């Protein structure tokens, strides 16, 4: 069912099974038929844990979306609310409960808080006079959701904004709890590294929680050798740049939600003769993207430039395989051919899908505007002309290109220049306000608070130092926007994921593993927040003796979000023959520059 979760170095299916068990146990507590009322936000993440069939096995007969007024009629014994602990949701639940028809059959109410039970919410329910109506009020600690064999996410949209803008550490607390759950399943992580204010706090909470849990000695052999906690605001640059891996581009252009993507249907129309293209599908094509699909696993992390050749090679292999049938002469041969058919057909379907997707993406990436945008991004990242108003950005504003695109570029320039000169900054801001509306003053203010947009202080631009020390820009990779074909097909450095720019965050991870952060103390001091190391002592029996040649496993946790390109870069490092470290990636949210900026925008009307 979720076999792809167990392919990696760490079997994340163990986590999935653990959370599924917890869910079943809760459902069984509410004996009899049930209806679930969903906080809409939760349905996506839940889909990765449990399909409807699991719920059905436990007598869930109906599902509703949480909304005001009376609950829809359902002849069930139990009504269970699956909600995040938010006050506004409590008000809706109370409305539901209070408008319940007293004359009808009585139904039992329950609440399942995800991921944590909240005293504040219970107080609100009490104030509204409905707390007593609930028989079970429990929490379902679904903090980290397994997305793939090496990928976990909390899918907490607001995490970055809450942490860096609003001083609300709730998601950090959940992250720490999630890490405790992981340690309960995979053993204590002996070493914790971190960079950034939030990283420091999460580490502190973990150490504190460990103290709270003493007594229930964890006697599991540690699977992870170390944990690296990274604040997103240590590397504000990377997500702003356009990702150039296959998966990254799909996300940039169409947006991947809980591992699903919705695509325009035209390219996926079944090519049947005589159809005449009469009834083209109108509904978006929905595809699940994860490593369970062999072909996708192979191409997702490649630079998009290298995808085409893989696809055509695959096409040849597959048609050759189908041709085999002509060579099959004996009954045995035919039988063998037939037995391979389902696999071959799946491969052919998968190839067709990805060829279509690649075509869709190519339409975008070959456009002049995409090329211009990329050129500007790369100029900024390589440190060219970051200190004056950029013509392309100016033109984008004048032509009213999407505001998010403009903001991404302006922020990128600001970050690559350690802040903009006051005059330049004010010019951009004024242009944006005049063109897109004065209400965006709130959004601009948010971006400034998050440090994405700022005036240069002290007149010093630190970015070149950082770029050079961390080798963020690899000139030889770059050729005409995309990497040269040879390098994109056989990359030697993580910079292939942005065709020249090596993501700062991943570089930090790489340097931590070898030769260690001591070599970059100076840069670490420039980057925001403290860097630190903590050790969690292990009982002697559990200390690991690594076999020669055995890789270390590092859990890297991005607080505030991570992009697919960064993930690709980490996977690249994991696969390096002499890399020495394999990565499992965790984050508060899988994101890209667009969804990131969008979450920071404020629309007052």
């Amino acid at each position, binding site marked *: 069912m979720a076999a792809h979760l167990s392919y990696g170095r760490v079997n994340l299916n163990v986590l999935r099974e653990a959370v599924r068990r917890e869910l079943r146990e809760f459902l069984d507590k509410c004996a009899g038929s049930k209806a679930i009322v969903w906080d809409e936000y939760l349905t996506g993440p839940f889909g990765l844990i449990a399909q409807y069939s699991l719920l059905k096995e436990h007598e869930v007969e109906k599902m509703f979306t949480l909304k005001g007024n009376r609950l829809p009629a359902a002849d069930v014994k139990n009504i269970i609310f699956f909600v995040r*602990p938010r*006050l*506004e949701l409590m008000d809706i639940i109370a409305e539901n409960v209070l408008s319940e028809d007293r004359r009808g059959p009585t139904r039992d109410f329950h609440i399942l808080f995800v991921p*944590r*039970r*909240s*005293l*504040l919410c219970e*107080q609100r329910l009490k104030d509204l006079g409905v707390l007593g109506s609930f028989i079970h009020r429990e929490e379902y600690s679904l903090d980290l959701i397994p997305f793939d064999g090496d990928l976990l996410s909390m899918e907490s949209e607001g995490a970055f904004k*809450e942490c860096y803008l*609003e*001083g*609300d*550490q*709730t998601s*950090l*607390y959940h992250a*720490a709890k999630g890490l405790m759950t992981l340690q309960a399943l995979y053993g204590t992580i002996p070493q914790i590294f971190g960079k950034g204010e939030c990283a420091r*706090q999460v580490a*502190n*909470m973990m150490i*504190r929680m460990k*103290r*709270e849990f*003493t*007594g*229930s*000695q964890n006697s599991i052999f540690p699977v992870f050798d170390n944990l690296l906690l990274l604040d997103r605001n240590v590397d504000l640059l990377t997500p702003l740049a356009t990702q150039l891996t296959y998966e990254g581009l799909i996300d940039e252009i169409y947006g991947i939600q809980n591992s699903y993507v919705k695509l325009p249907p035209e390219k996926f129309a079944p090519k049947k003769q005589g159809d005449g293209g009469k009834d083209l599908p109108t509904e978006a094509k929905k595809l699940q993207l994860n490593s369970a699909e062999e072909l996708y696993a192979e191409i997702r992390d490649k630079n998009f430039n290298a995808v085409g050749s893989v696809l055509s090679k695959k096409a040849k292999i597959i048609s050759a395989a189908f041709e085999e049938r002509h060579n099959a002469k004996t009954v045995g041969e035919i039988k063998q051919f037939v037995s391979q058919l389902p696999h071959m057909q799946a491969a052919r379907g998968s190839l067709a899908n990805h060829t279509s997707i690649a075509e869709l993406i190519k339409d975008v990436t070959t456009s002049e505007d995409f090329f211009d945008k990329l050129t500007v991004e790369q100029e900024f990242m390589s440190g060219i002309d970051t200190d004056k108003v950029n013509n392309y950005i*100016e*033109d984008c*504003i*004048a*032509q*009213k290109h999407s505001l998010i695109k403009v903001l991404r570029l302006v922020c990128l320039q600001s970050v690559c220049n350690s802040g903009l000169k006051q005059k330049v900054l*004010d010019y951009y*801001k*004024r*242009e944006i*306000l*005049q*063109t*897109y*509306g*004065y*209400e965006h*003053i*709130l959004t601009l*203010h948010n971006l400034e608070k998050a440090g994405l947009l700022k005036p240069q202080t002290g007149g010093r631009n630190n970015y070149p130092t950082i770029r050079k020390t961390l080798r963020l820009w690899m000139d030889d990779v770059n050729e005409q926007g995309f990497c040269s074909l040879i390098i994109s097909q056989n990359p030697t450095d993580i910079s292939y994921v942005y065709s020249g720019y090596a993501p700062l965050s991943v570089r930090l991870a790489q340097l931590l593993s070898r030769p260690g952060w001591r070599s970059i103390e100076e840069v670490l001091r420039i980057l925001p927040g403290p860097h630190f190391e903590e050790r969690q002592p292990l009982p002697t029996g559990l200390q690991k003796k690594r076999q020669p040649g055995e890789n270390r496993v590092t859990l890297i946790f991005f607080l505030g979000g991570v992009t697919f390109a960064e993930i690709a870069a980490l996977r690249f490092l994991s696969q390096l023959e002499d890399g020495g470290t394999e990565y499992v990636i965790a984050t508060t949210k899988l994101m890209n520059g667009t969804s990131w900026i969008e979450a920071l925008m404020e629309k*007052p*009307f």
Partner: protein
Amino acid sequence: MDCYTANWNPLGDSAFYRKYELYSMDWDLKEELRDCLVAAAPYGGPIVLQNRVLDARIFHTEFGSGVAILTGAHRFTLSANVGDLKLRRMPEVPGLQSAPSCWTVLCQDRVAHILLAVGPDLYLLDHAACSAVTPPGLAPGVSSFLQMAVSFTYRHLALFTDTGYIWMGTASLKEKLCEFNCNIRAPPKQMVWCSRPRSKERAVVVAWERRLMVVGDAPESIQFVLDEDSYLVPELDGVRIFSRSTHEFLHEVPAASEEIFKIASMAPGALLLEAQKEYEKESQKADEYLREIQELGQLTQAVQQCIEAAGHEHQPDMQKSLLRAASFGKCFLDRFPPDSFVHMCQDLRVLNAVRDYHIGIPLTYSQYKQLTIQVLLDRLVLRRLYPLAIQICEYLRLPEVQGVSRILAHWACYKVQQKDVSDEDVARAINQKLGDTPGVSYSDIAARAYGCGRTELAIKLLEYEPRSGEQVPLLLKMKRSKLALSKAIESGDTDLVFTVLLHLKNELNRGDFFMTLRNQPMALSLYRQFCKHQELETLKDLYNQDDNHQELGSFHIRASYAAEERIEGRVAALQTAADAFYKAKNEFAAKATEDQMRLLRLQRRLEDELGGQFLDLSLHDTVTTLILGGHNKRAEQLARDFRIPDKRLWWLKLTALADLEDWEELEKFSKSKKSPIGYLPFVEICMKQHNKYEAKKYASRVGPEQKVKALLLVGDVAQAADVAIEHRNEAELSLVLSHCTGATDGATADKIQRARAQAQKK
């Protein structure tokens, strides 16, 4: 060895009974036992002497200990559980004028009944009724019952009649087991059952003033002389007998002990014990005995017997020699699982420790196993024998949470009640002992201290509690909300922080509450978040208090959209925002907000004068709308007023005019002055509107750098090629080449190739 069985008394053909001293009594007893009502808990439990209580019986069921009372009015009252004293009055016994001659409580099917004897009659009393019963096979001639006894397990009953006759049968009164005539008519002082699980020969022990008789299904009884007043306590596997000076145990000799110690026993265990003794004497007989056992293939059994028998011995010396024998035997076995031996050694060590008269819990091995180590530890804790309990836990390596921690926590709860010790000292003493022992709940101990009225001590103890979830509620209960707040913040659990905040909000006046927040930035930001969604007005007050003018400005910007409908209201809100921005020294935001006010007023006027929708359009869109509406003058004016940069204005006009497809106006505009954005955008936008004719007009005006691009856009490949060749620009050449389509542009392509070749030659 022979003398070892000296205290064994046969009862019938198969069983022996023995009585041995547990320890001598060291109590300072003033009264005689006979003057007291005595109650003693089983499993070596404590003994209670009372001298002013009416007749009562205590009984034990699986739900706990019950008590039955005979009142002065000869009525019975019963409570099934002393912990939960629900008294139930039993029905009246017809014709009961005086106290019954004897009575007892029977437990059948989880229900307590009372069996009482009045003259020659027996009555069974339950909650509903009173019925007469007759034991089967009772000898005739009984005119009164003097004693009755129910066995430890409530399965058996014994009756002693005035004829000196003892009837023994099942407690259900349906079956007789045996009878005995002791020919003593004097009423016995006490009668109890003495049996054990898998007893071979159940017996009843009858006590008179100076005589003790063990009676079973055998013609002969065992008799002992009692030197002083004694009291019998029935146990699971025997009877305890205590008096002023001594405490003894009487029981049926357990099977394993009997096998080994019976005179001339050839049981494997007996031989093994013998072999080991010979071995110690360095005698070769050891080998003979061992061989004998091995030949019969009974060595395993022999070892097991010795281990088991050791468990039933009271004297450590004897335990040791049996265990030594077992250990000796084990050496000759390939695979003997070590558990039973190890556990027995451990159990005996624990038992010997608690049997010491200083502790005074004379448990037998069977009782200990029935009672479980947990209950034994509880008893030690109740007697405040903390050090011994801890030693036992450590010795048995019990998990800390069930063992040492739990005991330390009990000790600490006791410690906090010592009022004569200062808070400092108690807290320190507790922390010294408990440290970070896992599983200790400091908050439980603190709650106990608070319960004793020692709030300060409770707070000190809470300092040691690592779980903030536990600290905070108690601190709130003790009205230490501010401390609770800092603890909640330390934990990082925002929900906990919120809970304390709402508590504080109700507890403090607004000013104090705000002051408290001010000192706790994390709490302050959380509370702000709360207010943003729940109490907007409070949010404003918070910003005001902090002189956070920047946020106040943003607040009023939001308010101008959310709260105000009328334009005047909106402008006023924006004015407040602008003022706040000035105070925040954010000149840019202030000016922008003023611009916004100006634009709003203007848009209002436009709506009034021109009709249509202008409000809330951006400045850019307002100008565009004006152009689209043909109000070019006004558009120009607006652009000037707001100083729209030239470049953007050109883009704007270009886009709007092309949208209108007003080609004439566009051309006029293009000629109004030199375009700051060049002429390529003109070409592009015309092509977007599919007007190649207009596009071509502008293509010729495009500067040299973009000329090729422009020509290609309008489809003039040949001219594009010429320009590119003229420029000698490789990139441009390949761009043109990529636009060459096979048939039509063949010549052009050739031309380019030639130019390229030439360039390379040079």
